[in-house]
C-alpha cells in the first residue's frame, strides 16, 4: 500500500491524532511548556497572548528549555505579571519600554562571560516598544550582531495605553490619535516603516515574518531562529480585538485574512536576502480583511471609500508581486 499523506486537514491544524508526531506542532503536545500560563489578564481573544505562548513554547522546545526572556513594557508585560502573580514559566525580566533589545544584549553578554554557552536569549516587545521607542536599542543590537532573538508582536498600535497610533499602524486605520474624522479619516498614508526590511538592511543572519494564523510556519521559524547565533528578528502579526474592533472569536480568522489578502506577507531572509516565502492559500480581497475591523469601518460606511480601499488593495498587490506569494512551490 502506498503512503497516504494525511488529507483530512493536511498539516494546517494544530495537531491531529493521525499526523505523524514530527508533523504536529509544539502546541498539540500535552507536554508543551505553557510558557505563558493561564491566569494572565489579557483581553478575551488576545492575539498577543497567543503569539507569545506559541513563540516562547517553540523556543523552549528548540533550546531544551534553556532560554531567558526579556520583555519591553506593553500589554504583554502588564497582563502577564501583575504583582503578586506572574504567568511566565521562563526566566523573564522586564526593564523599560525602549530598552528590551539592549537588556537582552546584556543578558547575552553575561552568558558569554559566564560561559553559559547553551542558554538562548529572547527579547520580546510590541510594535511600539520595537518600531518606535525601542528602535535605537534594536538597531544597535542588530549592528553588533549580538546573540539575541528579538520577537516583535505587532498589533499595529499602542494598545496598552488605549490604542494610540504607532509607526506600525496601517494607513486609514482609526486609533485614539488618528480618529475617523475630517477629510482623510484615520491614519495617514505615509511611506510606512518596514522593520523587517530595516532589520534585513543590517544584514543580520535571520529575519522572518510570522502570524498567529499559521502556527506551523511560526513554530518552524522560531525554532530555527532560536538555535541560530547572532542577531535574529521575527515580526509576528497578532490581532488585538480591543484595538481593532474585531470579534474576540475572530482573532485567528482576522490574522489569517491579513496573510491571505497580501497585507501581511509571510517570508524569511538570511543575511539580508529573502530566502523563502509562505504562499497564499486562498487569495482574498483586502476588503474581506478590513471589514471585520471597526477601525476601518469608515472605509465602508456611510459611503464606501473606493479610492482608499483601492490604495490599500494596491499595497497588498505589491506585496504579492514583489514576493511572488501566489502559485505553487
Amino acid at each position, binding site marked *: 500500500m502506498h503512503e497516504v499523506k494525511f*488529507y483530512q486537514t493536511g498539516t494546517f*491544524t494544530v495537531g491531529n491524532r493521525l499526523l505523524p508526531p514530527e508533523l504536529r506542532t509544539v502546541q498539540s503536545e*500535552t507536554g508543551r511548556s505553557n510558557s505563558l500560563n*493561564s*491566569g*494572565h489578564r489579557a483581553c*478575551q481573544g488576545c492575539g498577543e497572548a497567543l503569539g507569545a505562548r506559541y513563540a516562547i513554547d517553540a523556543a523552549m522546545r528548540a533550546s531544551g528549555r534553556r532560554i531567558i526572556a526579556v520583555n519591553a513594557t506593553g500589554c504583554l508585560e502588564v497582563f502577564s505579571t501583575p504583582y503578586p502573580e506572574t504567568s511566565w514559566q521562563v526566566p523573564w525580566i522586564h526593564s523599560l519600554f525602549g530598552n528590551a533589545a539592549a537588556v537582552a544584549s546584556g543578558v547575552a553578554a553575561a552568558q558569554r562571560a559566564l560561559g553559559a554557552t547553551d542558554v538562548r536569549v529572547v527579547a520580546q516587545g510590541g510594535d511600539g516598544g520595537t518600531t518606535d521607542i525601542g528602535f535605537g536599542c534594536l538597531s544597535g543590537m542588530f549592528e553588533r550582531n549580538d546573540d539575541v532573538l528579538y520577537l516583535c508582536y505587532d498589533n499595529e498600535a499602542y494598545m496598552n495605553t488605549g490604542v494610540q497610533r504607532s509607526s506600525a499602524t496601517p494607513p486609514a486605520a482609526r486609533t485614539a490619535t488618528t480618529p475617523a474624522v475630517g477629510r482623510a479619516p484615520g491614519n495617514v498614508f505615509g511611506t510606512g516603516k518596514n522593520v523587517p526590511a530595516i532589520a534585513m538592511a543590517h544584514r543580520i543572519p535571520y529575519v522572518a515574518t510570522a502570524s498567529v494564523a499559521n502556527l506551523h510556519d511560526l513554530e518552524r521559524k522560531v525554532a530555527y531562529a532560536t538555535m541560530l547565533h547572532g542577531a535574529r528578528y521575527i515580526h509576528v502579526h497578532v490581532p488585538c480585538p480591543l484595538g481593532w474592533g474585531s470579534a*474576540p*472569536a475572530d482573532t485567528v480568522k482576522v490574522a489569517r485574512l491579513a496573510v491571505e489578502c497580501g497585507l501581511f506577507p509571510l517570508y524569511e531572509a538570511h543575511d539580508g536576502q529573502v530566502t523563502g516565502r509562505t504562499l497564499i492559500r486562498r487569495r482574498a480581497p483586502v476588503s474581506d480583511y478590513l471589514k471585520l475591523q471597526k477601525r476601518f469601518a469608515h472605509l465602508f460606511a456611510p459611503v464606501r471609500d473606493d479610492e482608499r480601499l483601492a490604495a490599500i488593495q494596491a499595497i497588498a498587490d505589491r506585496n504579492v508581486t514583489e514576493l511572488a506569494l501566489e502559485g505553487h512551490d
Partner: protein
Amino acid sequence: MDKPFAITLDVGSSLANKTGSWRTSRPVYVDRLPPCNHACPAGENIQGWLYHAEAGDYAAAWRQLVLDNPFPAIMGRVCYHPCEGACNRGTVDEAVGINAVERFLGDLAIREGWTFEPPRSESGKRVLVVGAGPSGLSAAYHLRRMGHAVTVVDAGPRAGGMMRFGIPQYRLPRDVLDAEIARLTALGIAIVLDHKVTDIRATMNEVRADAAFLAVGAHIGRRAFIPAGSAAKMLDAVSVLRSMESADKPMLGRRVVVYGGGNTALDVARTAKRLGATDTIIVYRRTRDRMPAHDFEVEEALQEGVLIKWLSTIRNVDAGSLTVEKMTLDEQGFPQPTGELETLAADSLVLALGQDVDLGLLDGVPGLAIEDGVVKVDANMMTGSEGIFAGGDMVKSERTVTVGVGHGKQAARHIDAWLRGAAHVPPPPHELASPEKLNSWYYSDAPRTVRPTLDLARRASTFEEVVHGLDEGNALFEARRCLSCGNCFECDNCYGVCPDNAVVKLGPGRRYAFNYDYCKGCGICASECPCGAIRMEPEPT
C-alpha cells in the same frame, strides 16, 4: 533564593487568578449530526465508521457500519448513496466517495471472513419475518442481535429478494450477495425458502412467533393496456430480471424495446444488451431530466450502446415491430400526444412500468388495512393487526434496497420494544452540522478518487461487474477526505488556539475538556474548530 520583595516573583503563580470569572458565554463540546448520516435511509453512522477507516482500523470501521446495516458489500454496490449528495465536502471540492469506501470495507470483511458478534443474551421471544429481501433480512439481523429467535420465510428459491431477482449481476455479483446472507444464517437466523405464506396468523402459530414482520416486496410487474397482435412478444421487466437467475435465460431476440423510465427499465435494457441484443431501445414518455432513473445509470447504459427514445409512447405492438407516437410536454409538464407516428423493428417488448405488491397472505387478517395497494402501518410500523409489522416495498415508501434495509432496522427496534411491552422512542436528533458550522480553511485540497470501471467491450458481452472497487491505498485516501462534520476528530485546534490554555487534552480517543476556571469565553476555539464540534452558549446565570 530569598528574592527581593515584589520585584521578583515565582513562576506560574498566576494560576491563582481564575480568569474564568470574566466569561459571559462558554464553549461546549457537541456532536452535531453529519449530513451524510442525516441523509442515509439505512441510518448508518457514516462519519462514525469513516473515523475508524481513516485511521486504517478497517475492522472497527466495519463493526461500526454493521451496527446499522448488515450489507456493506451490497450497499457499496447498489446503494444510490444520498449521503454523497449531502456531503459537506461537496462545498469544498467534491463529496467523499462514501459508497466506494463502504464497498471496500464490505469486500474486505468477506475476504477476511469477519463475522457478527452473537447476541449477548437470548430473549426467549421468536419473530417471524416474511420475505428474505433487504428489508426482511435487515429486520431479521437486528432482531437477532437483540437476542430474539428469528425465522425468515420466503416464497422464492433463494434468499435476497429484489437484490437477487431485481438487480443484474453486473451491478451485484451473486457471490457477494451470498456471502453477506451466509453471514446472517451464521448468526443463527433460520431462513425457510420456497414457502409462500398464504395465512400470516397460521404461519405465526406454526413457528410459535410472538410477532411478525412482513416484507414481501413488490414483485408483480405492472401491466399497461397496449393493443397487440397475437404473435407479439411482450414481457415484464421483473420476470425478465428474475428469470436471469434461473437456468433458462429469457429469449428476447436481437432487437429489444424496453418501455419505461425507471432504474428497472435501464437494468433490463442493459441486461438485454449483454444477452446479445444488437439494438436495445428504451421508449420513455418524457425527457431525460424527468426520468426517475439515476443519471449515472443512464450514462452507463448510453455508454454501452443502449438507445433511448425520449417523448415517446407505444401505440401498438405486432410481431417484429411496434408503433410509437411522439409526445410533447404541456405547461404542467405532462406528455401530450402529437399524432406523429413511427414504427420500430422489435423482436420483443419489455414493460418496465413499476411493480405491485402481492397482498395474498393478508387475506382475512382482522384490523389490517390496505391503501393504494400497500399495507397501512402506524408510526411504529405496526399494521392494524396487533404484533404484525410491515416494511419495505410493501408499505408506502421509496423503493430502494437502502430504504428497505432502513425499514428493517426501524421495524426491529419497534418489534423489540413491543415484545418488551414498551414503545421505541427514538432519541431526539442532533443539530445538523451544516456547512456554515465548519471552518473549511483547515481542510487540505484532495479531489475524490474515481473508481475504475470495466472496459466497454467486456461490458457488452459479459455480466462482469462494471464498477470496480478501491484498493486499500485509495480507500484510505477517500476515507481521509471526510471532514468529520460536527464530530471531534482530535485535531488539537481548540487545545492550541486558546489564549488562556483553558483547554485540557485528555489523550487519544478521549478528546478534550474545557477548564472553566480560566476560559474567558473568547470563542476562538469554536470559530477555529474545523468540524463544528464546539458551540458557544450563554453563561448560565
